[in-house]
């Protein structure tokens, strides 16, 4: 299939395809980080994760309208404000949901799955009632929609770079919170031994709530970023849920590094296969490979061996 092209062209295409894989990787990391915090550290299965992302997207939509109406001169910068607002909105909803629902279910992880699925249905209907059934068009600042010509053959989309920078930034932020802050220490202590953490004076209830809130907030930021590449509608969140869970589970639930490694391997596999196969078959093969590996190595890529 490559005989018609010059080496130069092929090189450029492979470079761009590698870049496409990196963008997909960043997308996966953004999707999965919030879930990795919630699922990995708290053991809660948040099926409404996609809806928290979409909340971030709707907040971005509202912010863009606000800027277009009242601050058109600085419209190009609204996106940064929108991401912060998205974090606050999704995080606040997360705190509320934890307080009302999740905290009663820590001993029943499978039940959190059902309850949060119910929550996702409710959120979808709320979005539909508030914003309408149609997708909303989020206007992206012009500087983000375009590409940087690297050579005369290779062009790199700016929003791709933006997503990559964002993914790196948030990963670092989460890393520092988890491994360099006292909150992170508390979270990890709780995930290993809740009773003991309680006994040594960690406010487990508040730490849990904060963890859930931060996980949801990160989802909100991801949703905000995805307005650049995807659609914003009441049911758009559902599209992400299977991929997201597989990334987290495949990485080994308790490991942040595992989540990133798994996002990397799944995205590269999918991106390479998409180039050679039809998109649908690439997707099926990727999922099957992931599930197959999980059957052989159910604990995921990275795990701590614990003494039971």
């Amino acid at each position, binding site marked *: 299939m490559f005989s018609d092209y010059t080496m130069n062209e092929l090189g450029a295409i492979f470079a761009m395809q590698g870049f496409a894989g990196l963008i997909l990787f960043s997308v996966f990391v953004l999707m999965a980080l919030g879930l990795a915090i919630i699922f990995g550290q708290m*053991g809660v299965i948040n099926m409404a994760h996609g809806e928290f992302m979409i909340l971030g997207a709707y907040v971005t939509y509202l912010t863009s309208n606000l800027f277009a109406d009242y601050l058109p001169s600085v419209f190009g910068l609204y996106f940064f404000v929108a991401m912060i607002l998205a974090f606050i909105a999704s995080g606040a909803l997360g705190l509320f949901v934890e307080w009302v*629902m999740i905290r009663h*279910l820590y001993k029943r992880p499978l039940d959190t799955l059902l*309850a949060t699925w*119910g929550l996702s249905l409710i959120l979808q*209907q709320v979005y539909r009632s508030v914003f309408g059934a149609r997708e909303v068009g989020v206007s992206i600042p012009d500087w983000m929609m375009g590409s940087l010509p690297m050579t005369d053959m290779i062009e790199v989309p700016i929003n791709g770079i933006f997503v990559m920078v964002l993914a790196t930034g948030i990963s670092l932020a989460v890393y520092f919170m988890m491994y360099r802050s006292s909150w992170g220490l508390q979270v990890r202590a709780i995930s290993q031994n809740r009773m003991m953490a309680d006994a040594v004076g960690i406010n487990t209830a508040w730490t849990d709530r904060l963890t859930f809130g931060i996980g949801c907030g990160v989802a909100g930021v991801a949703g905000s970023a995805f307005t650049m590449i995807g659609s914003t509608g009441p049911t758009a969140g559902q599209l992400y849920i*299977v991929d997201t869970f597989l990334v987290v589970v495949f990485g080994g639930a308790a490991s942040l590094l595992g989540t990133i490694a798994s996002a990397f391997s799944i995205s590269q596999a999918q991106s390479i296969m998409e180039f050679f196969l039809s998109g649908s078959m690439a997707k099926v093969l990727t999922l099957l490979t992931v599930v197959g590996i*999980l*059957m052989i190595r159910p604990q995921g890529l990275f795990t701590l061996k614990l003494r039971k």
Partner: protein
Amino acid sequence: MESSSNRLFSARDLIGFAVLIAIIFVVLPIALDGFRLNLFGKYLTYAFVAVGLVLCWGMGGILSLGQGVFFGLGGYCMAMFLKLEASTPENTSIQSTPGIPDFMDWNQLTALPAWWEPFNSLFITLIAVILVPVVFAFIIGVAMFRRRVGGVYFAIITQAFAAILTILIIGQQGFTGGVNGITDLRTLKGWDIRSEEAKEILYFVNGGLLIVCLVIAQYVRKSKLGRLLIAMRDQEDRVRFSGYDVASFKIFIFCLGAAFAAVGGAMFTLQVGFMSPTLVGIVPSIEMVIFCAVGGRLSILGAVYGALLVNWAKTSLSESFPELWLLGLGGLFIAVVMVFPNGLAGVYAEHVEPRLMALLGKSKAAAPDSAANETPAE
């Protein structure tokens, strides 16, 4: 207790079964017109899945979010047979290749794929309806349970299977009918399944099969295996160190649940007249779990009422308030998990039964009324 629990049916079980049989075979057919009865027949096909989930999830602690896969495989096997029967050369004379299913013709297939051939035989089809999903469940079960994958991981991986199968069915539309599914099914061995009488007969066949499955489930529940499932759910290690191979029991119950779901799927195809990938995916699979949860995850009879109630509510709510339906369903999920973890059966056992007992002093007179409360009135 020792002696009573050794029998297949306690007096209480007997009354429960009798009430359900009366509802399915007497009350509903009398109270409902043909259209509504067919609808309830459709709801009852979900009850097969819910009963299987009681065994797997309620008793065994194995939550599968991929029961739609087995429901779908059973349904597709049945649909393939019916489609072949409907695709006679006369019916399909307009096609470039008459005699093959229409969707194959649209996709330039000029001959029936080899793996469709066995579905020309009703006998092989009926075997395949059960066997294909069970073999599939067995492979998943061996792979997962031998490696001690359980709990949330199992749930997520089964969910991934539902996603994979859906994409595969849609992508291979020349062989599967794609997103449209396999539609326009007409006759079963020359018997028109679309007629009113056929639908009524199918309803009763469906009800009969459901009772058979319930009796099997009751037998499993009352056998030592049933107690082992509960034991495994709560103290898996202890069971292992009492000398049981835990994985083989999990595989067995998962396969049994898959077989129930498959029967439901096949009956769905017969009663509704088509099968489509929307019944295989993640959303229907999770909805099936909620049928079970609403009915009571520990009660096989409750699961049947759960499937009936939720679907009936879905139909009637979405007839009058389509916008509210999702809110209602979402609220139901949360309420069942947080307030009524044992579902209808739990509410009945905790609140209704004792009061009725106190009122009437006798369980015999009490049960029919109370069960009627659980049943959606039409």
